[in-house]
């Protein structure tokens, strides 16, 4: 296979390369189209609410004061969970949510960077001091799930996790104040 071989002609090489580049272009365009398509049609977007909150004072008043933490059902039926991620626990340590209903999860950190995921779901966010992290989701099955801290936050990091109790719709009965806590099992 010398340089005079027709396959090795300079123009032939360029032609082959352009063909391949065309394929690469199609591949890149297809990948991006998928991301855009799912973002616009079924709202697959990263948690990006960009909401600032002072980590030094968030526990004193407002939505992340202790009495506001946990699950709240609004008068319009919306379900909101508020939790604090702190060295080395989540407050509250157990979160209750209804199955098959849209839930808004809101997290904040008073100290260092944390992060969380809920096993078997698409819930995943960093919790960065100075900001509120917000995730919308719908839990599809009743049962207990793990919610661990997934960003290193200090030597006690491995012990930092909470439980998410997903209740069937008919078991999920908030009190008259719209508040509901985990069932003791």
């Amino acid at each position: 296979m010398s340089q005079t071989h027709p396959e090795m002609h300079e123009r032939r090489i360029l032609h082959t390369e352009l063909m391949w580049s065309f394929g690469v272009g199609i591949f890149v365009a297809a990948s991006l189209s998928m991301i855009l398509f799912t973002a616009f049609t079924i709202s697959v977007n990263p948690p990006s609410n960009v909401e600032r909150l002072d980590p030094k004072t968030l526990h004193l008043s407002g939505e992340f004061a202790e009495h506001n933490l946990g699950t709240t059902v609004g008068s319009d039926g919306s379900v909101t969970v508020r939790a604090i991620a702190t060295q080395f626990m989540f407050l509250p340590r157990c979160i209750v949510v209804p199955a098959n209903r849209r839930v808004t999860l809101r997290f904040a950190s008073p100290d260092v960077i944390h992060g969380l995921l809920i096993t078997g779901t698409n819930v995943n966010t960093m919790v960065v001091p100075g900001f509120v992290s917000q995730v919308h989701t719908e839990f599809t099955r009743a049962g207990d799930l793990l919610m661990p801290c997934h960003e290193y936050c200090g030597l006690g990091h491995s012990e930092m996790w909470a439980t998410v109790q997903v209740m069937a719709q008919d078991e999920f009965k908030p009190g008259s104040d719209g508040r509901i806590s985990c069932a003791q099992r």
Partner: protein
Amino acid sequence: MRNAERLCLAHFWVAFAAFLFACAIGTWQMWVRSPLGANVGTPGQYFMSVTAHGVSMAYVLTTFFIMGFGYFVAVTALDRALPGKLWAWAAYWVALLGVVLTVIPIATGQASVLFTFYPPLTASVWFYIGLVLVVAASWIWCVLMLIAMTEWKRENPGRPVPLAMFATVANAVMWLWTTVGVAVELIFQVIPAALGLVQTIDVGLARTLFSWTLHAIVYFWLIPAYIAFYTMAPRAAGGRLYSDTMGRLTFILFLIYSLPVGMHHLLMDPEHGNATKFIQVLLTAFVAVPTLLTIFTITASMEIAGRLRGGRGTFGWIAALPWERPMVLATGLSFVMLGFGGFGGIVNMGYGMNAMVHNTSWVTAHFHLIFGGSVVIMYFAIAYAIWPRLTGREYQSRAPLRLQLWLWFLGMMIMTLPWHWLGLQGQWRRVANFNYADPIIAAWGPWVIVSFAGGIILLASAVLFVGNLAALHRGPALGIVRPLYALAVHPPLRVPAALNGFGLWNVLVLVLMIAAYGYPIAQFLIDPSPGAIVHRVR
């Protein structure tokens, strides 16, 4: 090249000593996390170990290897003496001092912040000063690479810079851009906090600056592997490089697209909006281009070699390749790992899939497979290829070299494929131990043990690698020095100025960086986010 050989060997031995140490403690960490090692070690020991593993692999192995390899390429590809040899040695000692300063606080437990050191968690100030010294030393290396290329161009007007050197300088230029983010974070935010000069830190800004460095640094580590693909593998296989121009374009694309994409590491972060995230995801998609072009060009080059050796048919040329040569074998194994790892990378890029895998074992698996697998196996191949020239000695047998490469490949696959699976199951990363009494976690146990077995194979391979190199220092004297660098099918006589230097591309990088990072950084300068209180690890 007498002195240059000592310079290269000094760099490589620091790199590989750090590598062997990091492999050993990495294997220990896998044991501790597995059901077999429950109750072994304390979290303090574990996170000290993870910090040491990350720093050794990501900062010491890479920086020293790349500097040593750059000096080697500058001397051999340009065929002229290295300019500023005293500066090179000064940089070496500064970097080594930096490593010592970094290691002491890690070993005393005052820097268990992992190699990503996300504030407001803060380590001893010496940890950061040591890292800054390593980076500063690498800047001297960058300048020396630029000077070597500029002097060669002056002596050889109009001639194209040899591809190996062109790529090395592309990496140096990219590294200068890359390190700006982390340098600003360290000097203006983290070090003042570690010194106690400030009590709070803007974490949103710190994460954004770190992300500037976080992706491109991986390409800094990766480019030596691509240099071997383009300039060494075709020659080792007995063929020609399919296209020199494609090589140049690939390295230019790496320079351009590895920088304005770091925010894809922050997709799950609350401090940036969807629009800025999407701009960087858009640019991230283009990062796949240089790798896809490389797979094509190198496969075509290998096909030339296979057919020259008598290979026939659509796939017959593959069997005809000289797989007994370490460089050829490593290239093949690297491509397999690049295939799996590249697929994983494309998954990471999508918003929806990223939410499934962010900060799970999938991510740990991804970068171990891409960097530890496809890149580091090429570091081995490069070391095996150039060690005879550095030492003036010859291998008695190449069998231990092949065994070592195969062990590394098998170990990496056995370790990282279960990690990918566990990540999809939701196994989170960066923890010292798992509660295997929990039914969800208990189901992961067997796969964790399989990946631990992969880790043991990797450690065996690492020991064999260092043993192979050490043995060569006592091998028989080198007979014939074979040419190292591949010729192109059509060696370029002249190339456009744009493909022979980086002036134009630096302007483009600047424009893209302003587009991608201008607003995300400016927002914190215009209106700082509420500061978080500095937390010292001890």
